[in-house]
């Protein structure tokens, strides 16, 4: 081995070794486990072919958790990118106290999701939660935020919006700063109104940033676990069960390691498809 190769190996070796130990090997193991009836490790597990995948395809609870995950991902991503865009536009002009208010906006994003869930679970309490007490004090009826199966996942979207819209705000604010002021100024001189300037100049120039924000948020929403675990445990019924919760339940409650591994493999494939879709859209955007 030449000196250059050796240097390369020394520099990248530790990171590569750790990542292989933590991802390549576990993923390979996961794939093997997904074809077995394992309830523990690989020892003593029987090869069952595609049985686990067939069982998942027929499983109602798996379908429900997949549907919940997709619904949550779409709703959370869309609302957060829109809110982030609104905030970025609102904070784009200089005003006194802008820095302090920006920090106030960013605060929820840097907190632990478990802390966030603890606070909002208390806020959502039907009888004495802050939200319902506030609603009743202005004469409105209380809302069964987490008790109603039709509302519970939406309530979790609300919490996610509060916590993660700031992330989209930061990305889109960076995007707005990257637009040269001369461009919008020229359009203003040409007589373009605020809406036309936004539609024909700001929005197209911001498109790559909107893409990135949507990509990062949807990949993250797709993993949703902490909030559900801490706020509803997947209930009521399985109204807020997500794929991550489902895999966790199969593996660490029912010890159906084989079935859980198959579900995990399905999750990776979906995440990869999602990323691939975005990558294609990004490439197209870049080619234009």
């Amino acid at each position, binding site marked *: 081995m030449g000196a250059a190769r050796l240097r390369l190996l020394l520099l*990248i070796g530790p990171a590569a070794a750790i990542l292989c130990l933590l991802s390549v090997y576990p993923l390979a193991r996961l794939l093997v486990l997904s074809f077995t009836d394992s309830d523990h490790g690989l020892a003593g597990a029987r090869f069952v072919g595609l049985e686990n995948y067939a069982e998942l395809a027929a499983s109602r609870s798996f379908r429900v958790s997949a549907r919940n995950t997709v619904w949550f991902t779409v709703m959370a991503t869309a609302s957060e990118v829109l809110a982030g865009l609104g905030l970025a536009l609102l904070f784009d002009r200089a005003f006194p106290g802008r820095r302090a208010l920006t920090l106030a906006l960013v605060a929820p994003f840097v907190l632990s*999701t478990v802390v966030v869930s603890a606070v909002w679970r208390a806020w959502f309490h039907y009888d004495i939660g802050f939200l319902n007490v506030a609603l009743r004090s202005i004469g409105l009826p209380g809302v069964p935020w987490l008790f109603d199966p039709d509302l519970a996942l939406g309530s979790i979207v609300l919490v996610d919006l509060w916590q993660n819209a700031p992330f989209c705000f930061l990305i889109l604010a960076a995007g707005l700063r990257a637009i040269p002021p001369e461009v919008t100024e020229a359009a203003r001189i040409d007589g373009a109104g605020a809406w036309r300037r936004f539609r024909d100049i700001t929005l197209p120039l911001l498109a790559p940033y909107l893409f990135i924000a949507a990509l990062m948020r949807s990949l993250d929403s*797709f993993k949703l*676990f902490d909030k559900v675990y801490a706020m509803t445990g997947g209930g009521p019924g399985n109204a807020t069960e997500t794929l991550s919760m489902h895999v966790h339940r199969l593996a660490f409650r029912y010890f159906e390691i084989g079935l859980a591994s198959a579900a995990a493999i399905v999750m990776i494939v979906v995440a990869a498809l999602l990323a691939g879709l975005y990558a294609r859209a990004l490439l197209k955007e870049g080619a234009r």
Partner: protein
Amino acid sequence: MRARLAGAFAVAALSVLPIVWMAATALKPPGEYVSGSTALWPRAPTLMHLEALAAARVWRLGLNSLVVTLGTTLVALAASLPAAYALARLSFPRRLDMAFLVFILVVKLTPPIVLAVPLYQVLRGLGLLDTLGGLILAYQIYALPFAIWMLLGFVRDVPVAYEDAARIDGAGTARILLDIVFPVMAPGIAATAILVAVAAWNEFLFAFLFMQSPSGFTLPTAIATRINEDETLWGQLSALGLLASLPILCLVGIVHRALTRGFAGGLA
């Protein structure tokens, strides 16, 4: 202008309201927070919840969190700095550098729960289950891809001329890294370290799955187990949440700057 200011104030207030509520509830006697009033500030502030936490020796869990956070950050920097330098500057045979970057992206988008099952077995095999060292190792799965990706941009910003000059003076790679490249990109390294540390401090899933004895819990795990114990034990819960949040909230200005730097450096 006035409307903009009012709007900005309103959203900022909405943004911090739950955090203020948490801080206030941590100081309220139970009678106040179950009374069904929207009054934010405690009428008769009390330290009873903080004292209860002190009596339960919660500072030990804080210490666990701190050890894991510092350990994760140090290991991640030690492994990712040389790797990022190599990826940015050295030529790899057969485009292996591109392959490595794609691999990192794949790791980044893999849902953690997916890796949890086999990682659990790996840690058990290594005898690292239920140890802080094992958790630090497991956190590299989040920390390394993120750190390498973020540092890559900062290495690229270091002028190559500096390195060439040192090389002509006979400096080896280690010298060049330690004396020139790392000091020049120090702000970028600090930003990366901050973001890795915040993520490790806040992490829940792996801590919850891999640390099983209560003495090894980190703060997020302690909070999650308490949430389910008593539905309205909000005073202690808020006090614990406040303890877990204060260090980060104190640093929010630095974290914000690190995030902005990260987005400018091509993190997104």
